[in-house]
């Protein structure tokens, strides 16, 4: 199992009170499997992604990446694991304005300390795969919203992750472009044999997934 969440709970302060954002969430995703999670605004979707992406420690429960319990890992251990095993696609493309499309991917290899000719070739191949082979040298300001998000997808796959997490990846795109990006994530998740979790408030855009879930009042239920 690439990703396993077991009885995960997260509470967040809400003024003088605390609210339970995740209440005993269980989720398992195998390599090549694609699952979609929906939920209304404030239902805890992003918190779920933060926990699965090792950006936030849960208050309770267990998180495993490739069978490794991350609960006891130090901050730097979690950072290393995120670098080596997790690919993140963000709600906003979150590209670096100074880097060209291909450099956005090369940066991932540089962070890993493996920016060699093989990594440069892989960056070009991945961008070609997401339909941006002709836009390698363009910076974010020279790309459309859909193209930027596709660069974000390619970047998430650059480090050969076991787990791909996409948090509202089409929120800033129109219907047509949003659907195209969703299809791309699903297709790449399967092709690269990555356990993929897509979070979206609009499941109509997400087709061809293996399972669908709804997050409501902190509880995750299959649809």
């Amino acid at each position, binding site marked *: 199992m690439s990703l396993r969440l077991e009885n995960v709970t997260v509470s967040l302060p809400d003024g003088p009170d605390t609210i339970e954002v995740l209440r005993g969430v269980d989720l398992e995703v195998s390599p090549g499997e694609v699952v979609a999670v929906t939920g209304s605004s404030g239902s805890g979707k992003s918190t779920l992604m933060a926990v699965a992406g090792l*950006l936030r420690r849960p208050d309770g429960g267990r998180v495993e990446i490739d069978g490794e319990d991350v609960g006891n890992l130090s901050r730097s251990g979690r950072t290393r694991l995120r*670098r080596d095993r997790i690919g993140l696609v963000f709600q906003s493309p979150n590209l670096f304005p*100074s880097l060209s499309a291909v*450099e956005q991917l090369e940066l991932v290899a540089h*962070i*890993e300390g493996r920016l060699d000719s093989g990594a440069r070739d892989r960056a070009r191949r991945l961008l070609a795969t997401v339909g941006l082979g002709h836009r390698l040298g363009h910076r974010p300001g020279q790309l459309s919203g859909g193209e930027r998000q596709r660069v974000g997808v390619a970047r998430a796959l650059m480090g050969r992750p076991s787990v791909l997490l996409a948090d509202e990846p089409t929120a800033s795109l129109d219907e047509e472009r949003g659907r195209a990006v969703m299809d791309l994530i699903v297709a790449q998740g399967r092709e690269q044999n990555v356990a993929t979790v897509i979070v979206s408030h609009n499941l109509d855009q997400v087709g061809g997934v293996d399972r669908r879930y709804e997050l409501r009042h902190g509880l995750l239920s299959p649809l």
Partner: protein
Amino acid sequence: MFLALRDLRVQRGRFVLVGLVIALVAVLSTIVSGLATGLVDDGISGLRSLPLTHLAFQPGAKASFSRSILTATNLEPWREAAALDGFEVSPLGVSFFNARSAEGTSLDMALFGVPADSFLIPDQRGRDALSGEPGLVLSEEFRALGITEGDMITVSGVERTLPVVGFTFAGSYGHVDIAFTSLETWQELVYGDTVHDRFSAIAIRTRETTDFPEVNRLAGTETRTKTQAYAGSPGYSAETATINLIRGFLLVISALIVGAFFTVWTVQRSRQIGLLKALGASNLYVLRDALGQLAVVLTVSTLIGTALGVGLGSLVGGGIPFALRTGSVVFSAIALILMGMAGSLVALRRVTSVDPIVALAPVQ
């Protein structure tokens, strides 16, 4: 520095302003460094060029020639010790005079009275000049006032007229150009005809590093190394303290400017830093990136500013005490870079504290 270098290249406009300010501070720092060196030269270059290692003064004189009066009684124990231990000593008289040439040109001079056979006069020409009839060997700087060999110079006050018997590189002391004369002539000018065994200090040349406590006790003197004796030059301590204070302020200003800029810059790019960490970059990676960027901006700006400062310094006229020395300029530039780096520490602490979770927040 993958991201840092590309940021610098693509967003260079953002760095130009702070680079310009740092460069201006570097220009100022280089000019102040030149002034500091120039003032030091003007204050003690004559003393520095004398081939002595120590000076013995009257106790309490604080290395000031004008406060120190020694006599043959003080010199004798030194001569005996020198003969015994193989070092050299020489009486030295130093006084400031106003004089005038035959054409009426007013001249300020620091008059050094030295015996013609003293080790302080290293070449035979100088010894010949001082061993003959009374006369003056002037610092080269006097040539600029139209003084030539053979001119007659009248020392004001005592109204004694002496011929110019030669020129030498003598430098200046207490911001006044130096003139040499024989010790006897100096004693006549300072004390008149009656007192012939007085002088200001004893010049010593030795390879020893001792401060001669036993000889001092017997001679009733106190010794200073040559460097320590610089403090006795009129205004030297106050001037160097003032200049060093200005240099210190410049370094602090530089640190504050760089610190403020990089703090704002770090706040502005908090999301980028968070994103780097979300992509798996360690704190060390992010810090290396930020520090590298800072070092490039600081170094390039400082080098440009220093080069401009050196260029401007070369335009400074001879009337201003200004001198640029490689060591001093390089030290000044390195200090500026290091202080800038130190000033950025606050910003760097902020870099490490950025939470990668900010990358998940939607861009407003």
